[in-house]
């Protein structure tokens, strides 16, 4: 039984729903979006991820029609949308503050967009009921926004922006105002709703965990540019730069110079008097080129004895232990002063832990565990 993998971005015949072509947006002297080219496909759950001020909100506001690009082309289903006002676009937005109309009830909030078209009254009522059911708000239809909880308000905002069945739904930090537990539940709810309605979602977030959970593809942005666009596992396992590797999750970065060792293998000289590390890479590196080895802490094993099989092993002493319940992160200081983080699952009770502070330990990993990066 094989399930077709959803990956329209790999299909050259697929027409993108949204196309950014060399889009630049300037506010005075400040360049918010810098020559950006990007395709987003139908039914995608696309995440724009980046620190605040990276231009992700500007991109979203351009899609909604609140800002126009300074130069470049922006297409929605093949039609140029630059200059079309927000009320004339088949795009709806869920605002970070939710922007619910405080003077209208939940029902009227959801019906607001529907009433603007020339829709029949009974059809509007039916659609609102459908949305209320989808977001489990039927009981609260008559309440005003200030009479319901934060999580319910979030769902009203979602129902209102989905009611007009837009081609594209924009979500600006949709879960930012919710507490952690509720946020996790809501992430799955969002994915379910996205799947059942088949709407294309573009979500803006600074929370990498959220982006990884919900999105089919993630674009990591910095200073108005897209650094990498890939599936969540692609971003995590094969970041294309130190910036991306560092932004998503925890990572050890080891700097050094590479030397080809044949068969896609490279050795990385990272410190004097230490044996070089061995790493595989799909990208070609020249002899003597500077490179960074990025390894996730969970890919590094920590042992008291020197492991026999591992390609890379180095000794150090435990500087710090961060206990996270299910995991423990060991900060291991090497002879040269570098600190490497190694993570292990706590499958045993804490009292039986064999490694403690100041212990001499060996950390080791395979040649394929890390990624060699140019910059």
């Amino acid at each position, binding site marked *: 039984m094989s399930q077709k993998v959803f990956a329209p971005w790999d299909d050259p015949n697929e027409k993108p729903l949204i196309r950014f072509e060399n889009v630049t947006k300037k506010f005075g002297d400040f360049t918010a979006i810098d020559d950006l080219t990007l395709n987003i496909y139908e039914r995608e759950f696309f995440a724009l991820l980046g620190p605040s001020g990276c231009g992700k909100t500007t991109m979203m506001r351009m899609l*909604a*029609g*609140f800002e126009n690009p300074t130069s470049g082309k922006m297409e929605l289903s093949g039609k140029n949308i630059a200059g079309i*006002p*927000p*009320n004339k676009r088949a*795009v*709806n*937005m869920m*605002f*970070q*503050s939710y*922007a619910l*109309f*405080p*003077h209208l009830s939940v029902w009227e909030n959801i019906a*607001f*967009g529907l009433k*603007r*078209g020339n829709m029949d009254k009974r059809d509007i009522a039916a659609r609102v009921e459908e949305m209320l059911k989808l977001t489990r708000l039927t009981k609260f239809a008559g309440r005003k926004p*200030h009479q319901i909880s934060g999580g319910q308000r979030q769902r009203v905002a979602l129902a*209102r*922006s989905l009611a*007009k069945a837009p081609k594209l739904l924009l979500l600006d930090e949709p879960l930012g105002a919710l507490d952690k537990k509720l946020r996790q539940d809501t992430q799955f709810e969002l994915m379910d709703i996205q799947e059942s309605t088949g709407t294309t979602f573009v979500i803006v977030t600074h929370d990498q965990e959220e982006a990884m959970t919900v999105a089919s593809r993630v674009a990591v942005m910095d200073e108005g540019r897209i650094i990498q666009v890939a599936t969540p596992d692609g971003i995590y396992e094969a970041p294309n730069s130190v910036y991306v590797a560092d932004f998503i999750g925890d990572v050890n970065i080891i700097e050094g110079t590479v030397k080809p060792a044949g068969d896609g293998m490279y050795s990385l000289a990272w410190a004097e008097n230490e044996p070089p590390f061995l790493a595989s890479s799909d990208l070609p590196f020249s002899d003597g080129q500077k490179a960074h080895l990025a390894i996730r802490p969970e890919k590094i094993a920590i042992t008291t004895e020197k492991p026999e099989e591992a390609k890379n092993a180095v000794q150090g002493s435990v500087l710090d232990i961060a206990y996270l319940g299910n995991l423990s992160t060991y900060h291991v200081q090497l002879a040269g002063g570098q600190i490497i983080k190694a993570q292990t699952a706590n499958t045993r009770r804490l009292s039986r832990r064999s490694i403690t502070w100041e212990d001499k330990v060996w950390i080791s990993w395979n040649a394929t565990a890390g990624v060699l990066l140019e910059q």
Partner: protein
Amino acid sequence: MRRFFLIAVPYGWLLALFLVPFFIVFKISLSDLALSIPPYTPTMKDGFGQMIKAFDFENFVFLTTDDLYWKAYLSSLKIALISTALALLVGYPMAYGMARAPEEWRPTLMMLVILPFWTSFLIRVYAWVGILSNEGFLNQFLLWTGLISTPLTIMNTTTAVYIGIVYTYLPFMILPIYAALDRLDESLIEAAEDLGCSRIKAFWLVTIPLSRNGIIAGCFLVFIPALGEFVIPSLLGGSGTLMIGKVLFEEFFNNRDWPVASAVAVILLLILIVPIILFQRNQQRQAEAET
């Protein structure tokens, strides 16, 4: 005990400065005119029981027999209502402009609205005499531009009264509306546009309803003082403008008929109580909605 003192202060204030004067005026309104000092009878000198016995509602009955009074009440209501509407028409765009102005400009604009209060009210109304009279600045300017060939008669008409009232009470209209618009979340307008509203439609469906409390507060703050206004109609309106405040003044000082004047005042207060209660309820509901 502390609670009692806390409440006692405002209640004592109201009792001394509102209720007691009101009962004095009410008592006078039940008396008869007399050529004495004070110019009414009976007084406490006749004994309390005697005084109570002599009270009657004659003056209130008199107000209904002479059509001057109810005409003055109606005319005042009309002038106050129209002035309130005009002040809203002028004040709302000003408040909107202030709320949409760049952040650093707002304190200056606010200052400009409040600034006229630093000059005496009387002087400002007199200044309008200089502007509106036949030889005033306005007519001279219009004659100079050639728009008119003979001076317009604005002084001593109701138009002058409207101008005076709108000018004087405009800040009371602007400030509450500005406060409401200033709090308005810009993203609500964007949400309305995103959901298919044009700019104008978004203004009607979101901005106006959300500044409703400010509009109501502003209207009452203009309407209530305008209804009893005396200085503006007597200085700018001339003899042709009938307003109850002026009638009241004339009864007191020209006719020295304190009992009838008091009766006029009591009725005016009763008329004002309705909008004042409505205003209070609006303020209360607003406070509740914000919590």
